[in-house]
């Protein structure tokens, strides 16, 4: 819509020759006064700016070379396409840490020992039904009496055994969904590949500022009274609003949250005992559950999607036949 108040009305008709005084009216009324019979569209001049059509995406930066941003689900999938792994991950139990010495260089490398225990595909998440693609993996076992009837019914409907721990692993598309009930073994991961490990970190309880945020505290002596590890000041005074800013770092509960350690190299794999040995440390205490999946910041491993995933069938026989 063009704007009348920005227009200099410069046109010549016979009527205006005698018009010497123009009263100060509103722009619309001025135009109408000067040329009442002329429709408004003709009051356009060379100084008008062609209106630009505005689209929904114009709220964001756009131009050559920039990705087209969108708020739709399809746009979200396109954004995440490169980051979603092609295949499922596995749940493992953190058994502990030890070290290995290289015989030639004598270099000591610390590693974490993880064990896959009864890892099985217990469900799927599909884009058409749930909005995304994911594999639900269960590990461990639990007594039937300790599982609610609702959950037990769900497991029976899927045709899978009861599981103690269950977690989802997002995958890129339907090709990464193994068959329901498939047993995931340690050879899903290859020696030399990189994995991301996600686990709940060890809880530190109610931790003070020095532990939680790395504050340095105050001197131990020289007259300091009862304030060696305290916060000190919680911010500026009147100039900062006479308040404590929201989000001010203070003492509080620390730990017990999910943490991700990326790009851990897999050093050793033992399929029969379900052992995966990764370089470095993994969050959480011993006996904690760790989610392992292909590292998103490394090239995807060049293996077939069926590697490490075997059919359930009659569970004992199927597993022994594959080992």
């Amino acid at each position: 819509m063009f704007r009348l108040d920005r227009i200099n009305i410069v046109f010549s008709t016979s009527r205006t020759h005698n018009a010497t005084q123009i009263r100060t009216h509103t722009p619309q009324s001025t135009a109408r006064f000067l040329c009442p019979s002329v429709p408004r569209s003709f009051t356009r001049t060379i100084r008008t700016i062609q209106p630009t059509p505005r689209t929904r995406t114009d709220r964001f930066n756009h131009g050559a070379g920039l990705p087209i941003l969108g708020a739709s689900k399809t746009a979200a999938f396109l954004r995440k396409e490169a980051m979603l792994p092609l295949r499922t991950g596995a749940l493992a139990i953190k058994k502990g840490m030890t070290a290995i010495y290289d015989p030639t260089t004598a270099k000591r490398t610390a590693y974490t020992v993880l064990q896959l225990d009864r890892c099985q595909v217990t469900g799927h998440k599909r884009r058409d039904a749930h909005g995304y693609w994911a594999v639900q993996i269960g590990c461990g076992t639990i007594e039937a009496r300790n599982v609610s009837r609702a959950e037990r019914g769900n497991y029976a409907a899927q045709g899978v055994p009861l599981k103690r721990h269950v977690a989802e692993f997002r995958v890129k598309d339907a090709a990464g969904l193994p068959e329901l009930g498939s047993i995931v073994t340690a050879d899903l991961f290859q020696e030399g590949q990189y994995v991301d490990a996600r686990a709940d970190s060890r809880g530190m309880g109610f931790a003070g500022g020095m532990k939680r945020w790395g504050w340095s505290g105050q001197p131990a002596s020289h007259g300091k009274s009862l304030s060696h590890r305290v916060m000190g000041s919680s911010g500026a005074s009147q100039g900062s609003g006479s308040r404590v800013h929201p989000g001010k770092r203070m003492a509080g509960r620390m730990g017990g949250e999910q943490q991700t350690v990326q790009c851990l190299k897999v050093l050793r794999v033992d399929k029969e005992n379900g052992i995966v040995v990764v370089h470095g440390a993994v969050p959480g205490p011993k006996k904690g559950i760790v989610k392992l999946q292909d590292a998103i910041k490394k090239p995807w491993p060049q293996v077939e999607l069926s590697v490490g995933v075997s059919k359930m069938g009659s569970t004992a026989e199927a597993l022994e036949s594959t080992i």
Partner: protein
Amino acid sequence: MSLSAPVRPLACIKQAIRQCRIELQQTRRYAVPATEAEYPSLQTRYPPPTPGFRPSQAIKQNRFETGLKKIPVVPPPRSTTKACPDPISILTNKQISVLDPTGARTRLFSPANPERVQPGDILVVRLRTGDPVSGTVLNIRQRHQPIDTAILLRNQLTRVGVEVWFKVYSPNVEGIEVVQRAVKRARRAKLYYMRQPRHDVGSVEGVVKQYLRQRSGGPLGSREANTGRKTGSKKGRK
């Protein structure tokens, strides 16, 4: 009874008592449950428990969802944690068998070995790269994983105290030799008090040099004879 055997007056009595005792034992009577005829009101109306019955079978909590539709449960697959409950020890033992094939290094620090290294001993460590390092053992650090066993050696090189940690299974450590055992067993596991000048052993270079000389076929005098000798004493010197 033959006339040749001597007749003892009390032998018959002893025999008689013995017989009585045996008869009593044979006829000893135990408590018998009351029969139906004797006490009819006390008789049970249900049959006695079958052999192999456990009272826990009758406890109510063992009855699982009586009256509800049974939900089928798929049996779980083979458990790796049950098959291999301690993978870490398997891995560390595999490592140790590679790094210490003869087992000598393990025996040197094994708690079952009476000749093991103890805090207070003087050791010399031969490295793959570099000069041998010697010193008094202040601490033998044994963690949960035996592969990370380490020793702390303290020495004084030109009056400067030097402490070095060594991982005993490191491939860099060619050999560990005990130069001199502690005279008296230290009453501590960690001899950090030796950092004080009062308790500091000082330089062990002399002892090590002597040991190495003797080992390579030096002059007379065994190592054991010199152990426990105060420096400067001439008693007993050959």
